[in-house]
């Protein structure tokens, strides 16, 4: 049995890492929850956001945690245009056609990044990147603490937008009943595009928060798409709080499996959890049951 401080450090680290994971999966969950579109290009969009943060850092020496505001705005606009001008045409087509479209988009994005940046790993080097906060026996990685903070704020803002604003309520109405929303005169295509824009903005925030933690390469996308799927399925498809909770559950379970079983059992723990959850609660921790 490992020593208590070691175990506590692992759990805290798992919570922080999981919160960052949750932030990453937030956009995927929001887009699926409203548009019912599975975004297979999610990881590639995040990779694009990470490269954006690296380029801005190299060009303007701007900290990625400051870049995330501008990146969120740019990605929101990009997401809006992508959905309105392109993806929207596939919304009423069969699911396999949507899937192929998003996989194609993922491949194009990944290869454009490869063409533009080459296969080399890129990173940013901030002054606090390797610092930690010390709380008694606990060592908290500064970047993870900041990233987890950004995740909580982003989730709260997104939840507030959907609950408190008229546009947010209209989007929820579209999610609940797209036909009814259309009959009531809501601009569904516009609202879908706003949702995709918000999802892309979340991805941009996640990408900027992740880049001080992880070196970015063009091939990073698929593994993040997969991880985001696992988190969203565990948390409950379409639930924003579920995404965050799913991230924390995965983060903590991986950390505990690493400490208590073996570090190489981390992935086994997260996928084992996924299988177990699919068996006993297929809608995920926070997902609504079948109506």
């Amino acid at each position, binding site marked *: 049995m*490992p*020593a208590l401080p*070691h175990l506590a*450090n*692992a759990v805290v*680290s798992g919570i922080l*890492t999981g919160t960052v994971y949750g932030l990453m999966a937030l956009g995927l969950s929001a887009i699926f929850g409203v548009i019912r579109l599975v975004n297979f290009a999610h990881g590639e969009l995040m990779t694009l956001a990470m490269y954006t943060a690296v380029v801005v850092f190299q060009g303007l020496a701007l900290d990625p945690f400051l870049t995330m505001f501008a990146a969120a705005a740019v990605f929101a606009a990009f997401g809006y245009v992508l959905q309105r001008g392109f993806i929207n045409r596939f919304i009423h087509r069969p699911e396999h056609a949507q899937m192929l479209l998003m996989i194609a988009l993922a491949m194009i994005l990944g290869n454009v990044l*490869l063409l533009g940046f080459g*296969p*080399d*790993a890129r*990173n940013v*080097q901030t002054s606090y*990147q*390797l*610092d*930690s906060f010390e709380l008694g026996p606990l*060592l908290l*990685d500064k970047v993870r603490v900041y990233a987890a903070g950004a995740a909580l704020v982003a989730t709260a803002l997104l939840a507030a937008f959907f609950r408190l604003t008229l546009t947010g309520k209209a989007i929820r109405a579209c999610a609940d009943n797209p036909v009814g929303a259309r009959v009531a005169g809501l601009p569904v295509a516009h609202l879908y595009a706003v949702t995709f824009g918000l999802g892309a903005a979340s991805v941009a925030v996640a990408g900027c928060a992740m880049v001080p*933690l*992880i*070196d970015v*390469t063009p*091939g990073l996308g698929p*593994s993040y798409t997969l991880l985001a799927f696992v988190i969203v399925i565990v948390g409950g498809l379409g639930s924003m709080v579920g995404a965050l909770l799913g991230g924390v559950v995965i983060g903590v379970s*991986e*950390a505990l499996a*690493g*400490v208590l079983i*073996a*570090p*190489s059992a*981390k*992935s086994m723990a997260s996928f084992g959890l996924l299988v177990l959850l699919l068996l006993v609660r297929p809608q995920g921790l926070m997902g609504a049951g079948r109506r």
Partner: protein
Amino acid sequence: MGSVTRRAFGIATAGTLTLAVLPRRLKAASEKLKVGLLLPRSGLQALIGQSCQKGADIAPELLRQRLGVDVELLNADTESNVDTARSRAERLIDQGAHVLVGAFDSGHTAAVAQVAEQHGVPHIVNIAAAPQITEQGYKFVFRNFPPAPEIGRNGLVLLGDIFAEAKVSPKTAVFMHVNDTFGQSMAKGVAALLPKLSLPFKLLDTIPYDPAAKDLTVEVSKAKATNAELLLLVCRLNDAVVLRREMVKQRWNPLGVVSPGSPGLYEEQFSKGLGKYADNCITNTVWFNPKNDITHAFAAAFKKRFPKDEFAFHGINASYTFDAILIAADAFKRAKTTDRKALAEAIRQTNIAATDRVTFGGPIKFNAKGQVEGNRSVVLQNLHGKPTVVLPKEYAEAKLVFPMPKVG
């Protein structure tokens, strides 16, 4: 049609065969040797694959000057994937490659070796350490690079030299290693050899990890919890960066971070990505021989072709890839043919003097298994952002720093 007799047919066949074979033998000396080069130039191992490629790119011109033979490279990207490596090897053979060289990763190399053996095409391994590659009874597979147990043994023996030179001996160590083919071979080697060598430390724990891991918090935390004085590390590049960062974050300062012979710590991206935190990490590794004339010529050609690159960062990858092509060219010169069987036989008879190779070791001679024995290792330490030879003393470029200064 009925007028063709058996005698006439026999004469015609003999004539055709003579015409077909004779010119080939006559023109063999002026033929080009087509070398199918398989490297992971994209994907997870892209940086190392591209580093190997630089050594290969220099080879045709340098070998023309030194051996007077023409070498043509047929390049193929394995995309850091075993299945791609296999299919690219088959494609290179279809394209007319006389010899295959590659493929850096042990898993990829094993797949390429299988294809080469099936088609009867000589395969010269540039870099790959899994012992089983030359333990399959293959007739067409040759390796100049030492297998993992030999690297491990050389690396571990040099640990004793480090402690003796520094007059500091850690009492405990923790061993972390990647869990891919290479890492597991090295781990087996270390586990088997460590008890036989009278090293001063006790191994407290062995921690395998995924080389593609993006987060090694738990692994480092577990290693730190052992309170070991020395970290023995078998890594790749990306994971080495992640791991070292995590060590700094968790304020874990062992007396030393020493690899008994793996890539990662001495590479450019490690130093660039970590800055001062990359310094003082040690790799006991195969290297190039800085005293050989051919190394000077190779380094000069490298500098001319890649003026922005520091040769030291490509020391192993470029040198071992170059030497693999050198072996092929040398065999081609002696065989005077591109016939694959004759080339394989000539490779088997290779005897390149220790002074005529770029890499560090004895003469290049293959044993019955197709393996070169007697490759040597050096102690390489990152000092001021550059891998520097610190032991053996007769090759040292700077003084060893051990224990490493605390950081974080």
